[in-house]
């Protein structure tokens, strides 16, 4: 029986050709764990940033990082002995980034910094994945930001991120179809929408928005005085200081808000049924919907149509709700910011990169390049000043909206609410189920989903 050659003999011709360096590389390739360290050593330890920006936003971030790297090299040349910081960007899809952070950081594989929305903060901070920044961010540093956007990054009395840009929905309207002034109240909105529909007939809608999506329903819910979570469950107050059920899903205010949404988007309403993101875009750009409720990301969708002169639109803050005694509709506010990994090995340098990303100059680029709404207080003031070169009518409307927004809760609880709440919306608006019943079911479903976890939270 012929015996197979031993492993070392089989490898001999390969290793002979590769030489010691090649062998080292081979070892690096073979062992997944050292792979990172082998690469890291050659690259001279760049500060790695993960982000999920695309298109113009990605370009703006890329330009910022490039400028930062060049400046570091310039400074290092001028001052010998100072090592320049190198920043490397890595794009990861929006859906995967949070899970990658949750999984990679505890094992030490994550980035030094990452850019994401604030709504996962509670989860990350309580697991100790993100670094508290209180040591670096004193009152002067904090004063650089719009206070509301900075508050998004607070968890349990500590600050965990620097805000870059914020997003909320507002009211888009086609001025050729309903006139130059926006509707200030919902009564006016419904009246104008209805008039438009009556004038045009079938296939035309006064309003289009994703009525069955929890995010887009939030303005009405908050406007009616409802909530998704109690202050404790939302992480606004420390756990244990308020008793009772953590989820005020099935409250009278919520029911009233849902009934109102049904009048708006249900049978006989002015809003297009079964709307999703694409439908909102296509109806509004084609002039088949006079108004739309959506966020600043919509601006880039409209750019092409607006350029051709086919569409003349404006943006305005959400109307006040006549049915809720004139209280303003309050959309959810999501703030994107830069976080530091608790496992970063160069935290002081990583913070320098962070503050460069969150600086006023960076915010300026974010406005001009990516049309983002900046969290920088100074640039924010410029944005609202018609005399400034940064001023833009659309962005200024979103800026006005900021005052009546509500921060998206940062607790893992909130992620639980989206789906069942959306189902309640779909049932009540689309299928005519009573609002009270639909929300009751959503509340029961959420409690069931939480199961044993609920006991602990109470």
């Amino acid at each position, binding site marked *: 029986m012929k015996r197979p050659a031993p492993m070392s003999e089989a490898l001999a011709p390969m290793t002979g050709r590769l030489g010691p360096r090649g062998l080292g590389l081979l070892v690096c390739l073979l062992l997944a764990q050292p792979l990172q360290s082998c690469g890291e050593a050659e690259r001279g330890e760049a500060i790695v940033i993960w982000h999920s920006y695309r298109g113009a936003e990605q370009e703006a971030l890329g330009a910022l990082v490039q400028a930062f790297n060049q400046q570091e090299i310039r400074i290092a040349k001028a001052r010998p002995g100072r090592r320049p910081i190198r920043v490397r960007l890595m794009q990861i899809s929006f859906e995967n980034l949070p899970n990658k952070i949750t999984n990679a950081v505890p094992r030490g594989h994550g980035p030094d910094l990452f850019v994401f929305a604030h709504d996962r903060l509670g989860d990350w901070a309580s697991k100790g994945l993100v670094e508290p920044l209180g040591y670096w961010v004193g009152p002067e540093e904090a004063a650089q930001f719009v206070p509301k956007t900075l508050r998004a990054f*607070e968890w349990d009395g500590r600050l965990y991120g620097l805000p870059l840009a914020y997003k909320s929905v507002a009211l888009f309207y086609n001025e050729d179809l309903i006139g130059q002034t926006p509707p200030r109240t919902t009564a006016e909105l419904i009246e104008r929408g209805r008039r438009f529909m009556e004038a045009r007939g079938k296939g035309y809608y006064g309003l289009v928005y994703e009525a069955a999506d929890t995010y887009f329903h939030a303005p009405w819910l908050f406007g009616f005085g409802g909530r998704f979570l109690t202050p404790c469950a939302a992480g606004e107050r420390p756990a244990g200081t308020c008793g009772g059920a953590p989820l005020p899903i099935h409250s009278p205010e919520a029911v009233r808000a849902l009934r109102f949404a049904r009048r708006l988007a249900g049978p006989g309403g002015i809003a297009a049924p079964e709307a999703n993101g694409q439908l909102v875009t296509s109806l509004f750009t084609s002039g088949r919907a006079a108004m739309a409720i959506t966020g600043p990301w919509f601006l880039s969708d409209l750019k092409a149509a607006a350029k051709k002169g086919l569409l003349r639109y404006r943006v305005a803050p959400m109307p006040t709700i006549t049915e809720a005694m004139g209280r303003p509709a309050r959309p959810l506010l999501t703030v994107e910011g830069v976080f530091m990994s608790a496992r970063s090995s160069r935290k002081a340098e990583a913070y320098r990169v962070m503050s460069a990303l969150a600086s006023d100059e960076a915010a300026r680029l974010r406005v001009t390049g990516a049309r983002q709404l900046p969290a920088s207080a100074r640039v924010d003031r410029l944005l609202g000043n018609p005399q400034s070169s940064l001023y833009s009518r659309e962005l200024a409307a979103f800026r006005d909206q900021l005052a009546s927004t509500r921060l998206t809760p940062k607790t893992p609880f909130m992620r639980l609410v989206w789906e069942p709440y959306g189902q309640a919306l779909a049932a009540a608006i689309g299928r005519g189920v009573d609002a009270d019943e639909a929300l009751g079911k959503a509340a029961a479903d959420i409690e069931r989903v939480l199961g044993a976890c609920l006991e602990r939270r109470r």
Partner: protein
Amino acid sequence: MARREAEARGVVLTWLIAALLMGATTLGLLLRERNRALVSRNEGAAEEALRRAQLALAVPLGEGREEDTVAALRALRGEGGIREVVLLRTRAASPELAFVRAVDLVAHSDPEVMPGPLRPRAARDALTPPRAKALYDWATRVESRSGRDRTWSRPTGGGETLEVGMALASKGTSYVLGLRWAPVEQPPGVPALGLVLILLVGLGFPAAQRFLGGRWRWLASAGGVSLAAVGCGLLLAGFAAEAPTAGPGTGFFQLLQSGLSQGVPRGGPGMAWVAVTLVCLALPFLGFLGLGNRAASAARQHRIAFAYILPAALGMLVLVMVPFLIGLGLGFFNHCDGRYEWVGLDNFVTILSGGGTSITDPLNFWFTLGVTLLWTFLNVLLHVSIGLALALLLKDPLLAGKGIYRVLLIIPWAVPNYITALMWKGMFHQQFGAVNQVLGLFGVEGVSWFSHFWSAFTANVVTNTWLGFPFMMVVALGALQSIPGDLYEAAEVDGASRFTQFTRITLPLLKPALLPAVILGSVWTFNQFNVIYLVSGGEPAGSTDILITEAYRWAFIRHERYGLAAAYATLIFLILLGYTLITNRVAKGAEGAMD
């Protein structure tokens, strides 16, 4: 005679091992109790130290005498085990940004670290990172918003000292006091011995069995194993870490060291322990079954063959078996905000009892199971009948352009199924979908496909039928080619009709080829995640979800209930296992009947 002696020796040995095990367990439990007492004593002492520090500092701080404050801090050093004290006074930047703290005063008990009290800017710059950052973070870890709070931490590394912090807050100013403080007595690291012994005993069983024979061997190993199981159960039951000074262990050796003394944390590492222990316990059983001997002799005989399959086998082990076993194990835990908790069969009970939902509720397991079965049955029925019908049409050797038809009919199979699923979802759109536009020609107005159960279910079935029939067609075509033509000629001579030919010749001869395809197809359809998730997405209200998408929802959408999702996966596995076993038996029976 010699055999009798060996048996007796075996019994004695087994009981000896069992006694040793019980002893180790008892020792472990005793040591843990002792350690708990120690921890509570330490807590009391730390509390006392904090109070003393608070008392000593209250007056000078209150009167704003900073030099005296530092003197008091220095005096505290060495008292009652206090090694180091740091005081941080911070003020809120503004009422609405209370979490942004302006450092107002920093003082340290060690003159070398900090010579005197330091005021705002200088304070932050005086302490250089990373130590300053660590101190600052550690001190402000204390909840500064509520009036008074404490925090505990176990230092990483040395393990010589404990850290205790306290915060007092009033009117926007907060005082944070951190003490580095030597504990009364080090917690002993010995009890890990208990666990090690259990492992050794578990490994010792196969060895011990060599001395045993006959039914004694069975009795002895069963007795020993059940004792070991009882011991392990006792240990595992007490594994909740109660000591506030115990950080969650990470490394294997750290875990081993903390062992029973502080309890093995539940979750990841704890589960690794359970797994290792269970494997050790399972070894004697394998030995009992003679698997060890058989495997060893087989390995000796076919050494080269085993060497060849080893890489693949390792790959399978790591990529398939390990996740599978972890999945099985996970079903017995509840995951809640990053913590795992052993709940036994609770997850299964919750699922099988419906968890308080009515049978018509989409969250109810039996409802979902019903939908899944209906979904599988309808799909396989449609796949087979359409596939077979097309195969019969394409079988005709005189058919012109057969190649083109075949390629066209296989295309649905060749396109990745999620792309197809997304296209169909678009086609079922209420306003702009092709389906409704075609229906509109017949006067049917805007069906809202995904707002009613039956229409959404139909949309799913249509999509999956489109995806699934080519496979059945290809299988049937292949099998049809292999049926000898003379059978049909003979049947025609005997005057059999085309229908009789089909039922008497074609179907029976297709059966051996079709049956495995049907089994495979039904298992695929049972777990057809892509179509359900992408087409209906469970709409309306999760009612068109099948078991696998429901499991996905529990794991990734509904509060990361990994345990519940794993229990769902286990149930799916059991259902499919049972189905495969039954159909295999039926298939074998059918083959037997043919012979």
